[in-house]
């Protein structure tokens, strides 16, 4: 009996969509939150999108990054529109160069921007400690309460950046949903709806392009030096030639990967994503939802789909 058939025996069906009796396996990570503000939301978003670019997978990009949410002027330290971005890495030390380079190259350079800590936690890493040296000795600092703000003279005035940002080691990376169906365009629309629903959950990001992955991976490869390679069990075009996880009629699979500052945030995000998918049901070609895991032996966090059906 194939694994797909085996799973089929233990599945649930919601609004016509089969929900596999399986779980997403996720890993402990370090995460930080950073607030980026600007004169307008447009420019705050531009700085945030640039700073979180090339931040899909920690393996190849050094960090997994994305926009958590937009902030109203009442929610930011300088009373301007802002965006909270999250960055995740293997460890606090691994986040240090990522934060320094992304903020230094993408936020310092963006018109009218300022940058602040966006997370309350005891552990701190440098935020403005590197970029402040761009001031070449003309930078000055102002300590207010427990925060020190650096003022770096730039061509449109001053770039203000908080000296440190907080890091949590309780973050989780790799929560996921696999959305499987028989119509690629409709499947993509359904998955987009799930990503939009997840975007409303605080403290999580979906770091891949548009929040969606079309190249689910397995650990290792037949080639030396490749840490990950295509997960052939979920490739529809191989389903007749390899040990496949896909049933007949499957045309495409999309994955949503979720990183969060807490395990609860990841679970909440998976729950609302799953609900968004099952609310649409089979109308756009979705047939099944599954999740990626490594047999439960590698990741500390397991999110069973059956527990997330609200």
């Amino acid at each position: 009996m194939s694994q797909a058939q085996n799973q089929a025996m233990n599945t649930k069906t919601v609004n016509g969509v089969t929900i596999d009796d399986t779980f997403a396996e996720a890993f402990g990570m370090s995460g930080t939150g950073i607030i980026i503000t600007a004169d307008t939301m447009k420019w705050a978003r531009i700085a945030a999108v640039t700073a979180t670019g090339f931040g899909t997978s920690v393996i190849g990009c050094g960090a997994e990054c994305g926009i958590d949410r937009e902030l109203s002027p009442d929610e930011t330290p300088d009373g301007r529109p802002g965006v909270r971005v999250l960055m995740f890495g293997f460890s606090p030390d691994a986040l240090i160069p990522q934060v320094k380079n992304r903020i230094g190259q993408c936020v310092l350079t963006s018109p009218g921007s300022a940058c602040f800590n966006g997370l309350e936690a005891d552990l701190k890493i440098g935020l403005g400690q590197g970029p402040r040296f761009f001031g070449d000795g003309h930078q000055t600092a102002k300590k207010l309460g427990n925060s020190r703000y650096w003022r770096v003279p730039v061509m449109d005035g001053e770039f203000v950046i908080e000296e440190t940002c907080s890091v949590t080691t309780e973050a989780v990376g790799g929560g996921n949903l696999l959305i499987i169906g028989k119509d690629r365009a409709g499947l993509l629309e359904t998955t987009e709806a799930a990503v939009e629903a997840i975007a409303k959950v605080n403290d999580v990001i979906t770091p891949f392009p548009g929040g969606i992955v079309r190249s689910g991976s397995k650990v290792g490869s037949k080639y030396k030096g490749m840490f990950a390679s295509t997960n052939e069990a979920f490739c529809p075009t191989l389903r007749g030639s390899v040990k496949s996880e896909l049933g007949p009629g499957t045309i495409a699979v999309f994955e949503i990967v979720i990183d969060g500052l807490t395990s609860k945030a990841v679970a909440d995000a998976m729950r609302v994503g799953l609900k968004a998918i099952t609310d649409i049901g089979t109308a756009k070609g979705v047939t099944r939802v599954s999740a990626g895991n490594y047999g439960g032996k590698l990741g500390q966090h397991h999110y069973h789909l059956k527990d997330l059906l609200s």
Partner: protein
Amino acid sequence: MSGLTFRLKANPGERLNIAGLTPSKLAKLSSSEFARLKIGMGKASITVGDAFDVSGTAGDTITIEGTGAPLDFAGAGLDGGTLRINGDVGPYAGRKMSGGMLEILGNAGNYLGSGMSGGTIHVKGSGGDNLGGVLSGDRFGMAGGTIVVGGNIGVRAGDKMRRGTVIVKGKTGDGAGTRMMGGTIWAEGGFGPAPGFMMRRGSLIGPSVERLLPTFADCGVHDLLIVRILARHLKQALGPLAPPPMPFNVRKIAGDMAIIGKGEILLPA
């Protein structure tokens, strides 16, 4: 909220050093022990019990009533809780204070908050000279925390001040921010003559300056984000005691250019 109240019995005829009267210090003593604390600064060796009637139980608040006597070092070393003085205090109030709240309902003497590193001092009346300033033997003046003065203050406020914030509802005397090395003095009534003499860093914010030193350079009118951040921080920390926000555009005057010139005077544009 528990606390002790000290009522002055009569004018003791000499200055009293009340540095030991803080919640954390008295919490370690029995009532008989702190009644024996010597606070007189003359030959009479006046004790707490000689000078004050004490009521209440030790807790996080101390109130001193009926201050006909010169009280020096009020709240010196305060590290938490509240010390409220219903009257005037002499010099060195809040000296080396690191936390808590010192409320002075009257006026304060010289060197208010010298060497303080944290906490808040609120003086309803006026302050003396060298507010937040350096004392002989110290390396810096005020190094953190917040002082709010309801009236005017004397000369050389913030001498060698390193960090922290001073809010003056009235006007400063001569030479505010002399030798200042950091922090902020925000004078809602404006600055007296020659502010920022030999100032290295720090910010002096207010509506006017009586006379600028010639070693200060006009850098033009700018929308400085740090002023907005400061205003929001103060509003959050001080509530109604916070100064009204400055206009978005301020004139930055850098100085003292006789030395490194990284300080600034910020005036409305």
